[in-house]
């Protein structure tokens, strides 16, 4: 068997494409994590709601797909703000672990709200995108599209953080929480903006994931945990590190899936995470609680 056969190449490419989407998902979480210092355990459930939004707007109400996507991004962004104002803001002074547990409660709430409202059927857009055949490999356009849109989203966020005043304030707060309030930055306003941005990124991710996966109330559990691990592995508030970690994880999952089973890919990724936490704890984490 040649070292670089066509299946391996296909798995590698699919890994890169998955990595782009994972990087986008973890970017939103990383932003919230780095700026507000809160872990939104329910982040993947926000994405799940966005996916349902896409399904209903596009498949049931027959909106044009771009309008549906725009409304989903705005809607999930609003959900992010609500989450912050209702749950996180009253707990900002509490122990970090309490905030994590409270968003765990929101996770239960969102999952079961989806079960109650939409039922447990698997739904999909019913959108059949063609498959690209090149050199004996099969790569679906939906993955390519998701990858491209994820890249555009990441560049947009990067420019926002680098080129605008609010973006500079967000980065400054991520670096030093105490000093920035003394410098006249209203941290509460920045937290709300960050939550909106984090939610909007979840909304964008939901528009892309709905092309790849069926929606059901527990879909969040399939990619939620991996997202937290990517953020921690990449380093808190370190957006570049998060993107690198996302690609590493995606390749592990993709190659594990090629040689064994998809589940083993996840096992390798989790084990890799735990080992890396021990091997390079200070290099991988910008700050510790």
């Amino acid at each position: 068997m040649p070292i670089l056969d066509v299946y391996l190449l296909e798995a590698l490419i699919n890994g890169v494409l998955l990595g782009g989407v994972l990087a986008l998902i973890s970017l939103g979480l990383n932003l919230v994590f780095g700026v507000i210092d809160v872990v939104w355990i329910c982040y993947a459930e926000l994405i799940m709601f966005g996916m349902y939004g896409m399904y209903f707007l596009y498949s049931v109400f027959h909106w044009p797909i771009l309008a549906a996507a725009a409304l989903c991004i705005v809607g999930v962004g609003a959900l992010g703000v609500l989450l912050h104002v209702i749950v996180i803001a009253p707990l900002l002074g509490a122990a970090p672990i309490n905030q994590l547990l409270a968003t765990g409660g929101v996770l239960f709430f969102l999952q079961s709200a989806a079960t109650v409202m939409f039922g447990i059927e698997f739904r999909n857009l019913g959108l059949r995108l063609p498959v690209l055949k090149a050199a004996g490999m099969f790569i679906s356009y939906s993955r390519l599209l998701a990858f491209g849109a994820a890249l555009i989203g990441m560049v947009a966020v990067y420019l926002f953080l680098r080129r605008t005043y609010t973006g500079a304030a967000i980065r400054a707060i991520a670096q030093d929480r105490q000093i920035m309030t003394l410098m006249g930055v209203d941290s509460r306003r920045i937290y709300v903006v960050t939550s909106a941005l984090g939610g909007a990124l979840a909304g964008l991710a939901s528009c892309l994931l709905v092309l790849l996966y069926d929606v059901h109330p527990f879909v969040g559990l399939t990619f939620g945990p991996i997202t937290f691990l990517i953020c921690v592995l990449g380093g808190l508030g370190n957006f570049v590190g998060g993107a690198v970690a996302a690609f590493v994880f995606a390749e592990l999952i993709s190659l594990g899936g090629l040689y064994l089973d998809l589940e083993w890919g996840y096992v390798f990724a989790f084990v890799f995470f735990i080992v890396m936490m021990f091997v390079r704890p200070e290099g991988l984490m910008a700050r510790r609680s």
Partner: protein
Amino acid sequence: MKRSVAVCAGAGLVALPFVYHQPYPLHILIVILIWSFAYTSWSMMGRFGLVSLGHGGFMGIGAYVTALAWNHGGVSPWFGIPVALVAGGVLAVLVAYPCFRFRITGHYFALVTLALSGIVLQVITATRDHTGGSLGYTPTRYQGGSSLYALQFTGKTTWYLIALSVWAAGLYAWHRVDRSMTRYALEAISEDEDGAAAAGVHVTAEKLKITVLSAMMTALAGALYCQYQMFISPDTVSGISISLQMVFAVVVGGIYVSLGPTVGAVITILLAEVLRISFGTRAVGWDNLVYGVLLVLFIVFLPKGILGSLLGLRRRAAPAAPPRAQTGAA
């Protein structure tokens, strides 16, 4: 006075199945006792600010090792359960020792342990040729149904007494820790690790001790659940949702009091059952909906939990008793 109340309550609980033996209420009681024991196991370390989201993993190990040893090796649960406990303990050391050694605390610890429960869930699903994967797994029935050797009983009364004694043993372990020097060491650690270390507390060893104890107790709860229900699946005994369920029930009941996890189990299981009976299949999802809202409300308004807050009120009403310091993070 307090001791006599406990003895009377205990005697009442032991006598219950002989006086009253409706199968359904007894079944609910057994389930409550098993989960109370699991939640108590979690709170052994959770009360010291060591919030683990990996206990779903330990529970899954306990259940699956016991069942696999019985089905594939013909090993009686009397040997299988100790093996499962050791497996859970070893796994706890493998993950927790480096965590404590490299001082991974707070929500980093929670996330590392979250990865652990993810690993156990995925391994169970991936080895579906042996474990049945997500379809679940059933220990083989011993011929004749009930057998002490196979630890399989058809009578609910026997199971009730087993679950009751394990639950009582869990409470006993809780009180032993509560009265030991370990408790003071761990409370000091949860307040300030450097300070505790400077005062001569062996931080890593103390944390590791309580983690291994907690993990082994959780594995026992998993094994017990498996032997009683005779059916396990990755989603009912392992994984992230079970881990979160443990944390949630303990927080609702009260994390700092010995009966808090039990109160949490009673509330959550009764809530689910009442909703299920009164609304049938239309209730699917509603129990978790209520749980989720309650969890958020409790963490915001009642971080000591129901029982903890009630006891706090009573203590305030009787100023003679010295207030106990509530330390650590809930």
